[in-house]
């Protein structure tokens, strides 16, 4: 397989532009807008929430002026099990339900329902998994979604997409609306740097080379860690003379083993960077894929199997060394081992 792209081909925003806070976006904002657009175009689209409509922005459907749209919103109250089941029932009757809550509750309080009511019958339920990772922030450990990738990845029929940034969300929505089977879209909470542009490709099931590098190192990453990883790569290139590849594993399941392995073959080592437990998440997926195709020494840069603590999102990224300087430090540590 030929490597699919370079940064330029990827048509990303420059890191300087990405760093500019004026360009930052929260996934929920673009998600809500995309959902409303979709509902306008597609009468079979419905939205559900469990008392978090303002946070997930499924409120855009609820509050639509057009009653033929707003009537397609259903709040089930604080009951994630019923949320998922009701969504599944709507899918059984031919609707395309968008089921919304915080990632930790959506995946974790209704896992048994996602398994039997949705994945086993392979229903086209779409999960809006907002509030992924630790950038959930001050609400703290009970609200961090740092095992969601691990627990959803093990479900047959599940497709798991990770939004790179706010700008990419509408693209994901569009690309997955007719996907045959369940799709979970993992999104961050707060406004975060945007790296993708209207031209950046997104296809379900693909990983993308966001940065071509030299023969030393590849950094596999996903979601809103993509920006910090790209930043870290620049620092490593400038300060350490290491020129890392950066691969955005945009879809975590099914995994684009081809791209992941093809890049692995170019380098001596890799690191996986994710706002998720180092056990079972993207790190696990990449480790499995490479062990099966092209074994590569890997370092795991994520949450080190702990619940973490409350804090401001950016503060937490710093504390848990998932911002660019933290990633650089951890990559250096890994390389010096």
């Amino acid at each position, binding site marked *: 397989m030929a490597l699919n792209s370079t940064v330029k081909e990827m048509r990303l925003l420059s890191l300087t532009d990405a760093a500019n806070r004026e360009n930052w976006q929260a996934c929920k904002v673009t998600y809500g807008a995309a959902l409303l657009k979709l509902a306008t175009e597609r009468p079979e689209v*419905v939205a559900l929430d469990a008392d978090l409509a303002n946070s997930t922005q499924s409120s855009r459907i609820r509050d639509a002026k057009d009653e033929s749209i707003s*009537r*397609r919103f*259903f709040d*089930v*109250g604080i*009951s994630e*099990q*019923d949320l*998922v*089941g*009701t*969504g*599944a*029932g*709507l*899918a*059984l*009757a*031919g*609707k395309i*339900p968008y089921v919304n809550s915080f990632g930790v509750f959506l995946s974790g309080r209704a896992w*048994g*329902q996602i*398994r*039997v*009511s949705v994945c*086993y*019958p*392979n229903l086209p339920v779409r999960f809006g998994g907002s509030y992924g990772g630790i950038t959930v922030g001050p609400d703290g450990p009970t609200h961090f979604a740092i095992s969601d990738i691990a627990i959803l990845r093990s479900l047959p029929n599940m497709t798991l997409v990770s939004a790179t940034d706010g700008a990419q969300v509408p693209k994901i929505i569009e690309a997955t609306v007719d996907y045959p089977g369940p799709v979970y879209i993992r999104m961050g909470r707060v406004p975060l740097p945007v790296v993708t542009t209207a031209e950046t490709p997104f296809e379900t099931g693909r990983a993308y080379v966001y940065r071509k590098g030299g023969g030393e190192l590849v950094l596999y990453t996903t979601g809103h860690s993509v920006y910090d990883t790209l930043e870290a790569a620049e620092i490593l290139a400038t300060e350490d003379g290491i020129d890392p590849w950066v691969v955005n594993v945009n879809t975590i399941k099914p995994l684009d083993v081809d791209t992941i392995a093809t890049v692995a073959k170019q380098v001596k080592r890799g690191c996986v960077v994710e706002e998720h437990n180092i056990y079972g998440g993207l790190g696990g997926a990449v480790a499995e894929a490479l062990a099966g195709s092209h074994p590569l020494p890997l370092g795991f840069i994520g949450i080190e199997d702990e619940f973490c603590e409350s804090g401001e999102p950016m503060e937490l990224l710093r504390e848990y060394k998932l911002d660019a300087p933290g990633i650089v430090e951890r990559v250096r540590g890994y390389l010096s081992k």
Partner: protein
Amino acid sequence: MKTKAFPYPAVKYDDAALEKLARRLRCDTLCMIHQASSGHPGGSLSSVEILSTLYYQYLRHDPANPERTDRDRFVLSKGHACPILYAILAEQGYFPEEELCHLRRVGGLLQGHPSLHIPGIDASTGSLGQGLSLANGVALAAKLDGSDLHTWCLLGDGELQEGQVWEAAMTSAHYKLDNVTAIVDRNGLQIDGKTEKVMALEPLAEKWLSFGFHVIECDGHSFSDLRRAYDEALATKGKPSCIIANTHKGHGVSFMTDQAGWHGKSPSVEQLQAAVTEICGDKKIESSCMKTVLGEVKGGGR
């Protein structure tokens, strides 16, 4: 909205016909479970009248077009009782009766619990407590579409201990889903014993009432009383109905009746023969499933 007539409900099934059918379905169920060497006779037998009344006299459906979008829906939330449902679906022609003999077998169509890929099955279930939410979802879609389809959901009484049932009950009531009817198979038993001893449910009618349902109690083994209940449920507007169908687990087979031990146990050859004799009495009933299984048994097979 309706275009083509449905083959079911069918007028030809009067009480005499249903009664005969129920005997046959009971036998099929036990033959299947015997043949599979595993399965759930108790909760299947307690639901025979509930389901045969529903599938032959009420549910608008079409075995030749299992996917018709205007059909009524049935969700077997107590999925372990699927043998009786499979027996009905086979009898109505959703799939060859032959399949009943391969229940729970590798390569067979019929899984240990209902799966959406089986023709006639409207929802995957088996993990208890999930069915009413599914029924609500279908009902909400029907309301959006202006369809008058009705969704029925059968729950076990022990199953009501799952919190999701009460989440779903709130949802049915909140959205005034008068196109949803929950039926509770109130056989008084769960695996570990009497529901009232394991985890009491009474006062059960009050629970459903306080969750916003119109509540109807009935004799779950009487066709006429079930019809009264179903009619009342269909006639009730503005809120969902819950039918508490009083039944006996293992009904129809004396040694299984009200015995928790027969929840999930397969009858031996002797037990099967005794049960069939008791169920059929002097009536000669022979389904193809019975022929195969009892034939094998007589021929000293397996």
